[in-house]
């Protein structure tokens, strides 16, 4: 991988059509699970996902609500993932979603995830849900391309 690519990825936000996002989110979920069970301390995928999430939300330093830097498709995909991860909470508005996403990003960026197991488990489930939601979106785009008329 060229250094230019690595550098561009460090500023990268979440995009619904990012081809590696399902895999990255899945790996982050595995690594969080391993951290929680003291199997390993691998943080690379967790940090990369945290960085993409942080780059997708603009926080208001004056204390106002966070603002989305995501395209509308990614925002909807993120909403689906968050809705699945936070089963008992309802997310009515974009502000609700961004508040929750900011909390998850903070957990993913924290020094020691094993210190806050409840939040980390929620972050792990979010990673799984995000991975799934992005795959579903990719499939919906692929299905827009007509397949062979007699292919089953």
């Amino acid at each position, binding site marked *: 991988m060229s250094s230019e690519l690595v550098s561009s990825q460090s500023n990268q936000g979440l995009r619904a059509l990012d081809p590696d996002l399902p895999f990255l989110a*899945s790996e982050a*979920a*595995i690594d969080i*699970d*391993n951290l929680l069970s003291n199997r390993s301390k691998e943080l690379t995928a967790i940090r990369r996902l945290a960085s993409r999430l942080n780059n997708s939300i603009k926080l208001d330093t004056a204390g106002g609500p966070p603002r989305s830097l995501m395209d509308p*498709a990614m925002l909807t995909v993120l909403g689906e993932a968050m809705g699945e991860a936070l089963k008992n909470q309802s997310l009515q508005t974009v502000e609700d979603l961004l508040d929750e996403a900011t909390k998850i990003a903070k957990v993913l960026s924290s020094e020691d995830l094993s210190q806050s197991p409840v939040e980390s488990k929620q972050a*792990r489930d979010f990673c799984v849900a995000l991975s799934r939601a992005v795959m579903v979106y*990719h499939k919906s*785009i692929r299905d827009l391309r007509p397949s062979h008329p007699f292919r089953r």
Partner: protein
Amino acid sequence: MSTIVHARKRLNAVLSEIDRLKQSEFPYAHPRDGLELLDGMFKKQQSVLGKVSPSAPANVTHNACSTSLYQLHVYVPILGFILRSTNVRNAFEAYPLLLRLAQSVMGTDTKLIVSSEWEFSPFVYRSMTDLPGFVLIGLPAPESSNPLLIPLAGHELGHSVWETERFSAKFEKQIEDGILGELKGNRWQDYLSLYPQSKKSDLDGTDMFVRSTWLPAYTWALLQSEEIFCDFFGLCLFAESYLHAFAYLISPGTSGQRPLRYPNITRRIAHLVDAAKKMAVSVPPGFKSDFADEIEPVEPATKLLVSIADTVSDSLASNLIRLAQDFAKEKTVPTRNLAQVSDIYDKFRKMIVPTSAQQSLTDILNAGWNCDLEPDLWKNVPQVKPEQRDRILRDLILKSMEVSEVHERTMESP
């Protein structure tokens, strides 16, 4: 636990297949480079699966296996694509010039793989993180040795440019605003009939459900804008030859509902004709009437949303023409030169010889098309039998490409 065992075995199988593919004879280096990267990617997946703890929750394990399966669905077709790129039906003579074109618009590190594919429409794979800098263009197998269809690669190259330059970001806000403007204005009554409890102010808010009601229009408008840009980019690169190749492969169209990710064919042609005027490209007589209308969707929500997507993507056409022209100009891509086209045409038509000088891909292809459209081409040459005409013309075009590449390399060598 058998799920993860199956997942590991699937990865082992694909890695063995890659090892076999590496034994193929590759006519140029990039397919082999691609295989090496995919080999590394699948090995990385193996190591990620190896990290899954036996005590991991079911959702984590299942998702790890699911993403691994998804990657197989994504990349196994690419392996087949790479294999077919070695097939002798490909027009290898055109490859060096196409590679130069791709590298001039996307950077000198760009890697190109061209393959003959078994579906009757050219396509390109979106760039993939695991194949950085690669452009993969597929051409229909029965036509993959036909150089006259190379201009359609310009459209496919446009997709790669659109993505690497992140051009969609230039239009996302305009598209969102355009859709909301249409919904609150001209289409409000239609929207109300679908969602009777709605208020216009809901559309300005951030309610997640309300946003999901118009998201398909956004997605279609964005995809349509990309397709319109790619047509303009192909036209910019290949001028009249793009229109000829487009009509050859697509007209009159097949019956049935129009694909939602494209403008319908009538609008697509209208955009091409407008762009041709702005780019000083001659539109072939009867070009518009060569295409039959397509059927619009009838399901009420789809009908409303796609018609909004159409209106919004139409409104961006002028910006998209300018974007294609400015980008091609910035990259100093050779544009069609009528004098050169005429010179090559004369060589083909009068002397039945390839060009002896270095010529650009676009000039060779435009000269080729001018000959192809000449009904009396070589009728007065007794040595050329009518059934040999097309083959001889294709050979002249391909040989001209080889000659040009030789000149190019000779000039490059110290």
